[in-house]
Structures are given as C-alpha cells and as structure tokens.
C-alpha cells in the first residue's frame, strides 16, 4: 500500500520540516509500518557536500565481529574520501551504523559514491548540497527520535511509509531514493512498476548502479538521467508517464522543485492542498491536516497529471 507525502514552501522560507514531515507520516502509519524515510532539503553549508551513508541495518545479525567490522568500514570510508581529495568537516554518528558526513569536494560524485559503496555493506543514501535522506525501520516517530530530526529546518521535504511488497524490509528497500549519481534529486513512490527489469538493464548499461532490488529506485535514476540530458523536471516527468509501466503516484524533488505524477489509471491515491505560501500533498488528507489545524479545501489530481512547484 505505502503512504507518501510532500511539502514545499513556495516563498523559500525555512520551516521545521523534520517535525512537520514526521507528523504527516505518523498519521499514515497504517499505510506502511515497515519502514519510514525522509528526503529533507536544508540550507546549504558554504558549498559543502552532505553525504548520508549506512554500513549495516537495524536488523543485521550482530555477530562477534559486528562492531569491529563497523569500525573498520567507517575508517575505510573516511580514508577513501580523503584519498579522493575531499576535506572532511564533520562526521556525525546518527546510529552505530548510519552516518552523516559533511565535506568539501570538487571532483566527480559518481566516482566518490562508487568508492564508498565498494566497501562491503556500505550504501550511500544521499549525496548533495542541500538534500539529506534519512530512512530506517520503524514508524516515523521512532526514526525522528533516533536521527534527531526535530532540529531539521528547511524549505521542502518528501516522506514515505513503506509496506514492503516486492523487496526486503531493510534500509536498501526503504524510500526515498537518491538519484545516483546526481546530487540533490530524490523520489518517493507508491505503486509497482512492471517494466522494472527493462529499465534496470538499460540504466545499468548506461553506467548506473543499483544497490537495491526495489523498483522505485528506477524512477529517481531515470528522472535524473533525463534531466542531465537537458530536460526540465516537468518534461522528464511527462516523459516518464509513457516510458514507465505499472501503477504509480510518485513525488520527485530537486534542490528547488517538487513535482508529482500519476499513472494513466489514477490507481494510487493523492490528495493535494495548495495555498499561496504552501503546497502539501499526501496519500490521505489526514496527513495534510497534521500541518493545518483547520478545515481545508483539497482535491485529488486525475490520471496522467504532472504538477510541479518551485520554492
């Protein structure tokens, strides 16, 4: 089933989006209790890059060497970043297995991500100047608590509560997905893609890699590839309606845009609220009501609709 949500402040003002997205996602816990994920856009820090990566899962077997392995792999990540010429500013240990690193770097992001993910069990969850993806098992409140999202302020965010249908319940299977290797692009998806393997093979031949078996990752990589070839987010999303098969409502975000697309059957729900300063959308109106305490006017977009907003 899954639940998705998005918020964007159209005037570009900063709000406590970590808290707001948590309230939205927690109200939709019944749509997906397996895992919860956030893609949050904060203020860029002096042109530094932010990378979030994980070295294990909450449910990875804790064998005798577990802690030692984490220590070695973390050291390996940091030394590989340094070898590439990145200047590390800060490393935060969010959990024993998930980390947030800020660093200065001018080189190629794909090479950097590949070198990190070459380390066993490592996965880059997000890489960008303002994008940060946080995802883990459990409901929104427990992820919010574990990762200290109450202090996260920003301009726009998307979120996802997952009920796994076709891949593992782990961090690699949780949304949102970062659009490897392009910075600051992320996607959440409710639905199933039926031409997943077709697109996975095509994108792999074009040099993309997939750390997850989840079909939704395709959308993020597909959109980012189209955008790198010159399309705008809106054009790429329109193109995806014809090129992706299956049922979907997905929300895509870049550093200053948030867009939503629905398949031609309008098979998956989406409720939309628009005002002059805020756009909020979610699988159920009850999630939007967590942001606004009063009665609101909302509607459900139709089939094949693509809507994009700027901050």
């Amino acid at each position, binding site marked *: 089933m899954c639940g998705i949500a998005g918020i964007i402040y159209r005037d570009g003002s900063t709000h406590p989006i970590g808290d707001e997205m948590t309230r939205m996602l927690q109200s939709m816990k019944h749509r997906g209790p397996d895992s919860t994920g956030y893609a949050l856009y904060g203020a860029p820090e002096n042109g530094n890059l932010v990378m979030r990566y994980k070295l294990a899962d909450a449910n990875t077997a804790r064998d005798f060497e577990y802690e030692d392995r984490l220590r070695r792999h973390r050291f390996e990540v940091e030394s590989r970043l340094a070898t590439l010429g990145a200047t590390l500013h800060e490393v935060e240990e969010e959990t024993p297995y998930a980390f947030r690193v800020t660093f200065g770097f001018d080189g190629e992001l794909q090479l950097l991500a590949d070198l990190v993910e070459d380390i066993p069990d490592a996965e880059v969850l997000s890489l960008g100047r303002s994008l940060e993806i946080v995802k883990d098992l459990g409901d929104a409140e427990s992820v919010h608590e574990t990762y200290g999202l109450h202090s996260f302020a920003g301009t726009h965010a998307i979120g996802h509560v997952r009920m796994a249908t076709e891949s593992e319940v782990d961090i690699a299977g949780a949304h949102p997905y970062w659009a490897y290797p392009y910075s600051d692009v992320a996607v959440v998806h409710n639905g199933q893609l039926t031409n997943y393997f077709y697109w996975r093979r095509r994108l792999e031949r074009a040099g993309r890699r997939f750390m997850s078996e989840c079909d939704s990752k395709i959308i993020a990589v597909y959109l980012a590839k189209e955008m790198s070839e010159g399309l705008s987010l809106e054009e790429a999303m329109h193109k995806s309606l014809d090129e992706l098969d299956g049922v979907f409502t997905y929300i895509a975000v870049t550093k200053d845009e948030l867009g939503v697309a629905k398949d031609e059957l309008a098979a998956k*729900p989406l409720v939309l609220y628009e005002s002059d300063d805020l756009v909020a959308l979610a699988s*159920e*109106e009850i999630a939007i009501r967590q942001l606004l305490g009063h009665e*609101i006017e*909302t*509607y*459900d977009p139709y*089939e094949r609709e693509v809507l994009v907003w700027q901050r």
Partner: protein
Amino acid sequence: MAAIGERRITYDARGLAEPHAEAPRIAEIDGTTARFDAADLTIRTINLELRRLVYEEGVTDVVIDNPASRHSLGVGILTRCSITFNGSLGYFACGLIDGPEVHITGRVGWSACENMMSGVVVVDSNAGSLTGAAMRGGDLVVKGRVGARTGIDQKGGTIIVLGSAGSMTGFMMQRGRMIICGDVGPGLGDSMYDGDIYVAGAIKSLGIDCVPGEWTDADTELIERKFSNHGLGSPPAFQKFVCGKALYNYDSLEPAERKLVI
C-alpha cells in the same frame, strides 16, 4: 513499567486496539436532536457515540463537529435519521448505510458510501476515487469533483456529481443512474452491464461497450425530479450513455442452467 500484555498503544487508525471501547456519552441531547465534538475522540468512539444516539437515545438528528478527515466515520447506520458532519471525512465515509440522510460540509476521501443501501448523502466539496462503489440504492450528491472509478460496480441508486469526474467512471456498472454535470475522463462506462449515465460536459473517451442512448421523457422527468429534490437549480443539457450489450452474452444460459429451463 507496563506489565506484559499492557503495552501502551499510541497509534490506532483502525480502532482495532480498542476492543472494549464504550460510547463516551458526551453528546448534548435536546429532545430528538444531539450534538457532539469529535476532536478528542477516536474513530471507534465517534462511531459508538453516534450509534448510541440513534439506536438507544431515540435521537433522530445528530451533528458531529471536527471529524478531521478521519476514516470510516458514520458507517453501518441502519436506521432513518439525519446526520451532519461539520468538516471533511477520510476514506470509507458512510459505507453500508441503510436509511440515514447525511450531510457532509467538507470533502470525503476514497470509497465514500461504498455499498450504500438507501438514504441520502450530500457532500458539499470534492470526493476521492471509488465514490459510491457497489452502491445499491439511495441518492449520493457530490457538489465538487470526484476522482477515478466513480460508481464502480454500481448496482442501484443515483449518483449526482456537480463537478467533473476522473477516468473509468461507471466501470462495470450494473444498474442505477449516474448524473455528471462536468467533464469526464477516459473510459466512461467501461464494461458496464446496464444502468444509465448522463453527462453534461466533455467526454475524453467512452469505454468498451458504452454507447450513446436514446433520450426519452422518462429521462427528462428523472433529472428534473432529482435536481428539484436536492435543490440543485435547473439542470444543464445532458447526453445519455447506456450499455451496448455487445460485450457479454445476456440471453444465452450456461449449459447447466439450460437443462433446468428445459
């Protein structure tokens, strides 16, 4: 520290964690009318309070404030009464009802009035997809727009939509009437078996075996009566669509059935 089996549940969208919930008895009852605020209640206790009022207290007119877009409110009420929801409802609003006249001042989510048997439901704003799914009787009036697959599997009753409707409206409809004043999306009346669909706006495309129908005086009478019953003003000009009866075999019996007839 909670004892084993007493784990505190902080979240309960479906009301399943309250097997022993009782009606909160907070409504202000005045003769046959009653009113209560649902802001601090759970889905289950809102429904229990509503049922207590209409079944046990002899109340015929209930007003519920602050439903706050929650799911499954007002379901399964099987007696004649009048219910007003001041605000929006979530999914599965007023499903399975038989008798009540319901007024919702906001919008409803997916699957509103699913399997409704009789009564009247008026929604002042928009509705989600699957509105009036498998509906069997009564009138459902949506004054805004509706999502996709409105009246899917409809088996009776009348659905009136003043705004536009999405794709596959009237999908597999079997009986009843649907009156859409705005535009409709692709696949109108796809695979319908029977029933009438009236559309005033533009139609993106007709579904399989949905064909224009012949307009009769009975159609004019029906639409004028429904519009005047619900105070909807003067009706616009409609086109009528019916089943072409080319997709299914209506007259031929299954081999086993044929033996019984002979």
